[in-house]
């Protein structure tokens, strides 16, 4: 199809203005939910990825499927930082903002860096558009945009003009204007056009739509080439990244693939019981595609059924998994407590979002640490693991499965909306190098009575891991019953005696606590020896902490940093490590949940840095926090 499109025009053109090389740029596409900003951002991202930049993205969209067109509530935006060196965040302030309508301008202008480049679709600034966005006067004409470099481009009409010859109706042509914007920005930052043209050719089945988009893209690109409105054109050189094969991956996809991998590495079929919920649904969607990996996915009637099914599958010998977000974790609490009592392997994945209650369903937060660790009745301890970046979700899923299988315990894996939807380049691991996490099923009697007869005791533990045997249905002569009532140590029969209950409660706690010896110790990075302050992080704060620690250290501050993947149990040496430093700072997207835990464990006066705004920390915020703590 590609030859049909007007791409060849540019090929014949002179090379165009010389591009000025810059080290990094933060681009933010903003428009109406209907304007396809997520798609546009995605394309710009993967082109930059294949081009070899390091990058990090931050998609943001409204909770409504489609809020009223043209309103601030309906604004959907996509921010991406691309760079020629190692970066971890989508950037604090965009250096360029593409605003497809007044609402987008109103919603996002505040984020644009001063003197930043502002590209607006001037066609979308009519009376009614301005009114819908709540503008009394037209910002393009009054002086509300001074301090920014404004470029007005009539994207709608230009797109319509470009596609008219193809016989595209103006109303339809309008739907291609985001590709015009993409073409323009691609030119501005010297992105290769090939991949996008190819992608358009493959993605759109309808001939006219395909042609219209391709043409709009080219028109946008050519517009940049021809217009005089841009003083400069830029190029962001590929980053020097470790050699290897890369793909651009989002947290939810990485997590889904991690679960597929875990099944392969454990030599077990994967069973996902899930109920859709933002921002976790995409894991269900992704896993549903991979049935040829022996992955079963059942969309349950609710979260309680979802975890119940996963638990049933685990009892039957599968790798049982359930994926959800905060409200679902709450609903699964009682069944999770049963899983703790049954001591069966089970993965409960919580992609955190803003709470309490329905809260901010499409925004990020990390306030489920408490419910993950403490949110069950009775003494029901379980391991909790937290992924720290989109790509890390892959590894985290495998590690969670390893622990669940080895210790026969439910494990809660925490992700969040930011890393779930955000993406970054990922250097593909060598599949052969991934760990074998398989565990044997019980196949024989494990207890001999005095009279020499043998029995199967479902709660006779492995002396080292304290894990009980996993005997699955179908195994001859190991028939046994398990349940939520207290069980006699060893035999597993119902038992209500005081001593036995004490023993079992202690054993269950010891089993989980013991996992601390099977995880990597806590390591400080940065000014390990002489830091004046140690930043303790967990989960997705990783990116912002990384940037903030680098910058503050560049400015001569003595800063160390410990980042946790295993949040329960904690690495045994964590207390000693933290006590080395006069100050401990714990940045969290909650009101200080991990901070309380380390205070209780180690009696150190750790200080919380808290942000609960549905957004990740900016590195600037953490820079200031570190500096402030050192004053």
């Amino acid at each position: 199809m590609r030859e049909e499109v007007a791409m060849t025009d540019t090929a014949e053109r002179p090379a165009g203005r010389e591009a000025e090389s810059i080290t990094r740029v933060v681009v933010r596409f903003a428009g109406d939910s209907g304007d396809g900003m997520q798609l546009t951002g995605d394309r710009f991202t993967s082109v930059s990825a294949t081009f070899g930049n390091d990058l990090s993205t931050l998609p943001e969209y409204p909770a409504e499927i489609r809020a009223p067109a043209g309103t601030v509530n309906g604004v959907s935006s996509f921010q991406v930082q691309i760079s020629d060196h190692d970066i971890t965040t989508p950037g604090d302030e965009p250096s360029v903002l593409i605003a497809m309508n007044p609402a987008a301008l109103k919603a996002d202008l505040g984020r644009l860096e001063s003197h930043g480049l502002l590209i607006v679709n001037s066609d979308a600034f009519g009376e009614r558009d301005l009114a819908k966005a709540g503008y009394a006067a037209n910002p393009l004409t009054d002086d509300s945009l001074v301090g920014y470099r404004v470029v007005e481009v009539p994207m709608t009409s230009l797109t319509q003009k470009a596609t008219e010859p193809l016989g595209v109706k103006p109303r339809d042509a309008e739907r291609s204007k985001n590709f015009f914007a993409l073409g323009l920005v691609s030119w501005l930052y010297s992105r290769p056009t090939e991949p996008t043209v190819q992608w358009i050719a493959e993605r759109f089945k309808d001939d006219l739509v395909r042609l219209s988009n391709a043409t709009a893209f080219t028109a946008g690109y050519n517009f940049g080439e021809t217009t005089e409105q841009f003083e400069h054109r830029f190029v962001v050189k590929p980053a020097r990244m470790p050699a290897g094969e890369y793909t651009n991956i989002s947290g939810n996809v990485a997590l889904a693939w991690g679960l597929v991998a875990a099944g392969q590495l454990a030599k077990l079929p994967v069973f996902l019981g899930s109920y859709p919920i933002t921002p976790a649904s995409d894991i269900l969607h992704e896993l549903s595609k991979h049935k040829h990996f022996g992955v079963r996915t059942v969309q349950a009637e609710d979260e309680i059924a979802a975890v119940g099914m996963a638990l049933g599958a685990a009892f039957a010998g599968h790798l049982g998994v359930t994926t959800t977000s905060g409200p679902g974790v709450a609903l699964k609490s009682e069944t999770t407590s049963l899983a703790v009592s049954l001591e069966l392997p089970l993965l409960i994945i919580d992609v955190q979002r803003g709470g309490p209650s329905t809260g901010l369903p499409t925004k990020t937060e990390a306030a489920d640490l408490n419910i993950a660790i403490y949110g069950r009745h009775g003494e029901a301890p379980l391991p909790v693991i937290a992924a720290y970046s989109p790509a890390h979700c892959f590894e985290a899923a495998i590690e969670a499965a390893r622990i669940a299988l080895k210790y026969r315990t439910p494990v809660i894996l925490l992700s969040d909306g930011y890393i779930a939807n955000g993406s970054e380049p990922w250097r593909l691991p060598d599949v052969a190098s991934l760990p074998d996490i398989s565990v044997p099923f019980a196949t024989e009697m494990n207890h001999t009575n005095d009279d020499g007869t043998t029995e199967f005791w479902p709660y006779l533990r492995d002396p080292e891991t304290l894990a009980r045997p996993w005997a699955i249905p179908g195994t001859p002569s190991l028939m046994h019953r398990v349940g939520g009532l207290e069980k006699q140590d060893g035999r597993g029969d119902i038992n209500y005696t005081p001593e036995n209950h004490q023993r079992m409660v202690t054993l269950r706690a010891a089993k989980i606590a013991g996992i601390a010896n099977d995880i990597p110790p806590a390591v400080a990075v940065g000014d390990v020896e002489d830091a004046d302050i140690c930043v303790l992080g967990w989960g997705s704060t990783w990116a912002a902490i990384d940037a903030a620690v680098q910058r503050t250290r560049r400015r001569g501050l003595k800063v160390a940093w410990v980042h946790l993947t295993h949040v329960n149990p904690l690495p045994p040496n964590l207390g000693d490590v933290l006590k080395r430093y006069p100050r401990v700072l714990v940045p969290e997207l909650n009101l200080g949940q991990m901070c309380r835990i380390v205070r209780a464990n180690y009696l150190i006066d750790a200080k919380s840095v808290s942000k609960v705004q549905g957004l990740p920390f900016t590195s600037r915020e953490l820079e200031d926090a570190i500096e402030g703590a050192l004053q």
Partner: protein
Amino acid sequence: MSDTIVPVTTKKDWTSDQEVRWCPGCGDYGILLAVQQLMPDLGIAPENTVFISGIGCSSRFPYYMNTYGMHGIHGRAPAIATGVAVARPDLDVWVITGDGDGLSIGGNHLIHALRRNVNLTILLFNNRIYGLTKGQYSPTSEVGKVTKSTPFGSVDPPFNPLSVALGAEASFVARTHDLDRKHMMDIFRRAHDHRGSSFVEIFQNCNVFNDGAFDDITSRQAREEMMIDLRHGQPIRFGADGHKGVVMGTDGLLRIVEVADVGEDAILVHDAYRDDPGLAFALARLSHDDHSATPFGVFRSVDRPDYGMAVGRQLAETSSKKGPGDLSALLRSNGTWQVA
């Protein structure tokens, strides 16, 4: 049912070493006996059989069966069992539940398991009371019932478990009672042999908190006139030498008549295999309390795809199309680039 070579077992092979902990005289004993006696006839092996229950007196059942079993949590047995059955269509999965466990807290999981037609044999012990928690009314207790939680009488109209099941697309629906072991065994066998979800309501006497609830129907004296025995293909007749019968009016109303009055040919012939659940539903509504003539037997038994099998088939189909999953190919499926 998934075994090719038929294992030979005796009742003993199906009986666990746990002492049975129901009140003396509880109807649950008879049901347990019926199941344990039936199992050897089913040609299945204990190790391929799983009993999943919720919480309640009835839900203690799995402990007494020498099979794989799980005493789950209140109301969740159908969900847990769905996980077992979908993961392992080779297993024989039974669900044991009560009128509170299955219809109160567990109602949603029950109707969704029936809708999906998961291959489960579901036995609902209906004693019209909460036994384990010492006698509160249940969703099948009659209006006006005085219990610990309704000292002035309940104002909750009860469910008819069979209509709930039929309204939820159940492919196999039957009723039996704890006093007739032969009948129980016959119904349980057919429920087991049915591929997909089988739902069996068992009238069960709780002699401590709701004694005699079903006496007007199932007591030896009452049976003949009060129990309507449903047999596929047979005219629906009952009472002393079948003097009573059931007819369907063109107004869509089911009526009980004296056969003599209408003539034998007018009597409705039971059709359990009919796709349309309308007739089964009408029959389920024939009795409105525990003091009127009540149908027993198989109300409905139709073939629908077994959910676990259907899920498995999709796996097989994709594998045969795409071949077995290749992890490193998966990691590359969204496009990659090389960095030297």
